[in-house]
């Protein structure tokens, strides 16, 4: 405090000027690298064709293991589809408005295809509109935007199938009756909420599930610590809980970690959508019997090919359009500009070692 009250003489001014310049210089060095490759984002020059076509992936957030696999597939797809360069940019936190400034920067950078997993279907709309009027094609993947704001939406699988497989798995694991809870990502995540809606409908309408009672829905915000604490809270608040469905890879891993070290291990069932590499130890130690997921790499892969098809004018996003997604073969655009990647896979102790993502 005293230090701060003292008069800052010429030396002080000089020092702060030097400091600011130093920080700026640091930024400059970072910029220099940025044009080539920096951190998580790297540009890959395709071997042949493609020319100057640029594709950018904007995931919900960076540094999420699931996202990394999706983007790995996206990079591969972009290269095979013939894009000159592919970029990954995105926020560190999955909040609704954080993606907008990235879309703006891409608009200005003249990117040809923006591939986005929206944190909020509407918050990104204005920015995407500006990108489109600047000539960019918009491919939504993983989590849809408002349909008016994009050309096509690449969906993992039919949302209903994902929901049904999770309700089926939990029913099998708790023997068809008892209390269950859902631990989801953020309260506004479009895909999670759609699955939860289908799960609730299925639990209410299917007589096979009449003894299963959904007692709580909690949100871990796709944050490991928060999910862990929410799982802990769930089991404390509902002593009769028999099962948890976590339709998010961060949530299911955190919950499994909590269960595996608690007295509930083996007693409370856990299923949902998880990454085999993250869930392997918990399947092997008996915390988790079975969980599901599609191959996320295919999602990014198909998205890249859809982007190329849009630029080439092969598809417009209208129902019935078809395009070839590299080694995955032909994909069809369904009603509402929807492109389905494939059915979900169920992982258990028998098959989990065959997958590496």
């Amino acid at each position: 405090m005293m230090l701060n009250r003292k008069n800052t003489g010429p030396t002080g001014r000089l020092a702060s000027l030097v400091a600011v310049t130093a920080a700026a210089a640091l930024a400059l060095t970072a910029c220099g690298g940025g044009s080539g490759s920096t951190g998580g984002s790297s540009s890959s020059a395709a071997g042949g064709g493609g020319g100057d076509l640029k594709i950018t992936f904007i995931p919900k957030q960076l540094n999420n293991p699931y996202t990394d696999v999706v983007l790995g597939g996206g990079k591969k797809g972009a290269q095979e589809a013939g894009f000159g360069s592919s970029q990954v940019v995105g926020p560190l936190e999955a909040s609704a408005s954080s993606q907008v400034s990235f879309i703006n920067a891409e608009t200005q950078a003249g990117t040809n295809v923006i591939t986005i997993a929206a944190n909020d279907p509407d918050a990104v709309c204005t920015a995407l509109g500006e990108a489109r009027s600047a000539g960019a094609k918009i491919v939504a993947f993983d989590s849809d935007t408002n349909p008016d704001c994009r050309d096509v939406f690449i969906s993992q699988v039919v949302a209903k199938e994902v929901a049904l497989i999770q309700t089926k798995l939990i029913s099998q694991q708790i023997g068809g009756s008892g209390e269950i809870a859902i631990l989801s990502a953020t309260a506004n995540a479009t895909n999670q909420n759609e699955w939860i809606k289908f799960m609730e409908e299925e639990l209410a309408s299917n007589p096979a599930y009449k003894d299963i009672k959904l007692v709580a829905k909690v949100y871990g915000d796709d944050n490991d610590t928060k999910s862990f604490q929410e799982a802990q809270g769930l089991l404390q608040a509902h002593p009769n809980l028999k099962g948890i469905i976590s339709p998010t890879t961060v949530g299911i891993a955190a919950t499994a970690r909590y269960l595996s070290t608690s007295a509930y291990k083996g007693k409370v069932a856990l299923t949902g959508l998880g990454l085999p590499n993250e869930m392997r130890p918990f399947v092997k130690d008996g915390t988790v019997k079975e969980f599901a997921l599609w191959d996320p790499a295919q999602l990014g892969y198909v998205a890249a090919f859809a982007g190329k098809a849009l630029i080439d004018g092969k598809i417009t996003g209208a129902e019935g359009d078809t395009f070839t997604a590299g080694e995955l073969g032909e994909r069809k655009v369904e009603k509402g500009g929807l492109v389905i990647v494939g059915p979900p896979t169920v992982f258990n102790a028998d098959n989990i070692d065959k997958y590496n993502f």
Partner: protein
Amino acid sequence: MSETTSTSTAPAPMADSTKPLASEPKGKTGAARILASRDAVTIYALIAFLLYAAIAIPRFASPVTTGFLLLDVIPVLLIAMPMTLIIVTGEIDLSVASTAGLTSALMGVLWAGGMDIWLVLAISLLAGVAAGMFNGFLIAVLGLPSLAVTIGTLALFRGLALVIIGDNAVANFPKPLTAFFTSKLGGTGIPTVMIGVVLVMIFFGVLLHFTPFGRGLFAMGYSKEAAGFVGINVARSKFWLYVGSGAVSALAGIYWTLRYTSARSDNASGLELAVIAAVLLGGVSIFGGKGSIPGVIAGVLLIGTLNYALRLARVSDVVLITVTGLLLIFSVVAPSVGAAVKDWRHTRRVRRSFSQKAA
């Protein structure tokens, strides 16, 4: 602001010496003082970075940048204005982002409930004022510490927002209104809403620098007791500052909602730290008593430009937050280091002058 070097730092033995220390430099005055002040340094840094970005980053120098960049910084710019005044008095308001979120949630619910949009906006603004009055009551009337109170209301207002709107998001605001909030003034790229933002900046700038109320805030920042003795109504000043902060936070909440066309409970979360960082970078002392509105505007724009430019150059966000963090630490540490060096030289000079006398 107006410290002179000698009064407090001169040692007591000076009393027996009739001659002043000849080599002791005097504090700068007038234009020289303003041109070399702490906030002027931020302004120079901003100009330097703008020049660099315009040259080195492709596509940076265009009206499109102005538009996108300003649209991004407007919420921070708005809230930084009352925050500057509050920090100058040596207090803090951490509840600003939650107030904005609360406003956003309220807007969503009222609009979805079928209320007229102008009435919705008026009620939301009043809600912000009420939130500010609540803070002001606890801090000014009950005399509780602002840090504790606003940490509490940070959670409380965010909680209320969740109670009001829950997990829902309301998006169907009137198209002409949301379009207005992203519209630009002709080909300049300057967003139309900047007119309102500039009015807010002028209001708080004049209030702080050209009114007795503003001078009183600086006095409070140095010593609340002393300010009270010279006739400044400390409690009343504080109360109105928090009301102002609540009102401006509500404006930021309304802007956020209509710009992103999405009313949600988690809107603007984390914004309070961005605002405080920008205010400190703009040369305001966290201990109070020092700071200026032009410096803060430069601070906000410097962080905003840095963010935008690095994003345009596709620098990863990890690097970006590290750079802004380092910049902030340097900007706070550098003047203190400078002051310490100066102090050391002063002491040495005094010692030398005494040893000469003794000889």
